[in-house]
C-alpha cells in the first residue's frame, strides 16, 4: 500500500480561487517526499486536504488507506502534522505540552512520558523541557512541534515549511533532525517547502508544483535525466593542448588550465580522463557538475512559460 495517494485532487476556495488543479501523486512508505513550489503554489492547501481540515472540490486522497475527508480522526491517528499555525500552549512547559498531546492521542501516561523524554533528548530540548514555551526561541518551538507531531509514532509526517522563519543555523539543525528521525523511525515524510536547497539535502523524491498544478515528480536523477540531456565535467589540467586526440574528447577551454566537457553518461568519464593522461596531460582536478534542484526547478518553470508563450503565439 502506498502511504499517501492523491487522485485528481482539486480545491477551489469559496472565494473562487482555484488553489489546486487536478493533482495526482503517490508516495511510497519510507519516502521523504519534497513538495516544492513558490509561495501561493498550493502546498499548504494540499496538506490541509491530506489532513482532512479541508474537503476537496473534486478528486480524492488517502493516507495509509484512510480518506481524511471522511474520517479525519482516523487519519490523524496515523499522521503527524507540523504547520505554521499549529502552535502549542505558551503557559505550559515543553514537557507538559508533550504530555498533553500524548494524552490527547490516547497514550497511557507512563508511555507518553517515556516517549516525550526520548523525543526531547533526540531534538536537543532536554535542558529546556521544564521551561514554559513562552521563553522558547522559534527554532526550539519548531523542534518541539516536531516532537509533538511524532509523539504517537505516526506513519506519515506532514511538514509544512518547517524551516521558514529560522536562521540558517537553526534551519540546518531542524533539517538534519528531520532527516535523522525519518530514517530511524522509518516514517514517510511529506515535506512542503520553498527552500529548495534544504529539500535537496534530505528528500528522496520530489514533486514540483506551481499555481496549483504539478510540473513534475521523481527522484533527482529522474528529473535531471528528463530535463538535462548533458552534464558538465570540469577539468583542471596542464599539457593537454598538444594531445592528438583532443577533438575526440570535445574539450572546451575555459581559462588557462580549465576545461569543460559535455557528457551524457557518467561512464564516459574514465575513457575521457584516460585519453588525456595517455596524451601526456597532467590532471589536477575533475569535477562533475550536476544540475541542482534549483536548476531543475527553473528549467521546469522556463519550459512551462515557453510552452505557454508558444501557445499564445499560435493563437495569434
Amino acid at each position: 500500500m502506498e502511504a499517501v495517494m492523491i487522485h485528481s485532487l482539486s480545491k477551489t476556495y469559496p472565494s473562487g480561487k482555484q488553489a489546486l488543479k487536478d493533482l495526482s501523486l503517490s508516495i511510497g512508505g519510507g519516502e521523504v517526499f519534497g513538495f516544492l513550489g513558490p509561495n501561493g503554489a498550493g502546498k499548504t492547501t494540499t496538506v490541509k486536504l491530506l489532513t482532512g481540515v479541508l474537503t476537496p472540490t473534486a478528486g480524492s486522497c488517502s493516507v495509509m488507506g484512510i480518506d481524511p475527508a471522511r474520517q479525519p480522526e482516523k487519519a490523524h491517528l496515523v499522521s503527524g502534522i507540523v504547520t505554521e499555525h499549529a502552535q502549542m500552549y505558551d503557559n505550559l512547559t515543553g514537557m507538559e505540552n508533550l504530555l498533553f498531546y500524548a494524552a490527547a492521542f490516547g497514550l497511557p501516561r507512563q508511555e507518553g512520558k517515556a516517549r516525550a523524554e526520548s523525543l526531547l533528548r533526540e531534538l536537543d530540548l532536554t535542558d529546556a523541557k521544564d521551561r514554559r514555551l513562552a521563553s522558547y526561541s522559534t527554532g526550539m518551538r519548531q523542534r518541539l512541534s516536531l516532537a509533538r507531531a511524532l509523539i504517537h509514532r505516526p506513519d506519515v509526517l506532514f511538514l509544512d515549511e518547517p524551516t521558514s522563519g529560522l536562521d540558517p543555523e537553526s534551519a540546518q539543525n531542524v533539517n538534519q533532525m528531520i532527516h535523522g528521525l525519518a530514517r530511524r523511525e522509518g516514517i514517510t515524510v511529506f515535506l512542503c517547502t520553498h527552500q529548495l536547497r534544504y529539500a535537496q539535502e534530505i528528500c528522496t523524491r520530489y514533486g514540483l508544483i506551481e499555481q496549483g498544478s504539478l510540473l513534475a515528480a521523481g527522484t533527482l536523477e529522474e528529473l535531471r535525466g528528463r530535463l538535462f540531456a548533458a552534464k558538465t565535467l570540469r577539468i583542471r589540467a596542464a599539457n593537454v593542448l598538444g594531445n592528438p586526440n583532443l577533438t575526440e574528447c570535445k574539450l572546451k577551454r575555459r581559462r588557462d588550465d580549465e576545461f569543460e566537457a559535455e557528457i551524457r553518461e557518467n561512464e564516459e568519464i574514465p575513457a575521457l580522463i584516460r585519453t588525456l593522461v595517455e596524451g601526456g596531460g597532467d590532471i589536477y582536478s575533475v569535477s562533475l557538475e550536476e544540475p541542482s534542484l534549483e536548476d531543475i526547478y527553473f528549467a521546469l518553470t522556463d519550459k512551462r512559460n515557453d510552452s505557454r508563450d508558444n501557445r499564445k503565439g499560435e493563437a495569434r
Partner: protein
Amino acid sequence: MNTAMSAIIRKDFRGVSANRRLFSSLLILPLLLVVVMPSIFIVMIHLMPDDPDTAKLLAIMPASARLSSMELTLSGMVVNYVLPAFFLMIPISTASIMAASAFVGEKERHTLETLLYCPLTLAQIFRAKVMASFLLSMLVSLISLAAMFAVVETEAVFLMGTLLVPSISWAVVILLVSPAISLIAITLIVRGSAKAQSVEESQQSAVFLIVPLILLIVGQFSGILLLNVWLLLGLGLACAAVAALLLKTAMGKFSYERLLQ
C-alpha cells in the same frame, strides 16, 4: 468520555488557574455578588428604622414569608428572593469567560489547529470544551454559594441572633436554573466563536443574558414578581429546553473550515 477528552478538560482547567488575569476576572464578580452585596443588604436592613411603607409592603407578602420580626422577614426576603437572582449571574459570567477562553482563546493563540489534528472527532472536541466550561461554571457557583451562606448566616447570627432559613427555591435554582443558564451562556459563546476573532469580542455575545436577570432583580425588589417555587421550576425547565436546543444546533455549525477561518 475517553482519556483524550478528559485530557482536554484538565488542560482547560489548568489554563484558567495559570492565567492570572483570567482567574481574577473569574473571582471578582462572585466575590462582589456573594459576599459584598448580601452583607450590604443585611446591614442596611439592620440599620433601617421601622417605617410604615415597608410595613405595608410586608403586609402583602405571603404568610409563609412572614417571620417574627420585620428585620427577619426582610432579611428572609433578601435571602430567598433577591439573592437567587444575583447568584445566577455567577454561572453566566463564569461560563462565558471560560467558554470564550476555551474556544476563541485557542484560536487566538493558534493552538486550535493543533487540537484539531488530534484523533478526535469535532463533536468530541466540542463536547470536551463545553464540558470543561460547564464544570468550571458549576464549581465556581457552588463555591460561591457556600461562601455566600457562610457570610450571610454569620451576619444573621451576629446581628439578629438567629439563622435565616433558605427556601426550597434555592434547590431549584442550584439544581436546575443555574446549570441550564450556564449551558445557554456556553452555547451562545460557542456559536459566536467561529466569527469572533478575540476573546473579548466573543464574551459580548453572552452579555445580553444578564438583561433578563437584571429585570428579575428589579422585579423582585419592587415586589412585582416574587417568584414562587412553581414559577421558578417552570422557568428552569424552559431554560433547560432552550439550552438543549441551542447545544444541538451549535454543534451542527461546527466544521474545520469555519473554525480555522
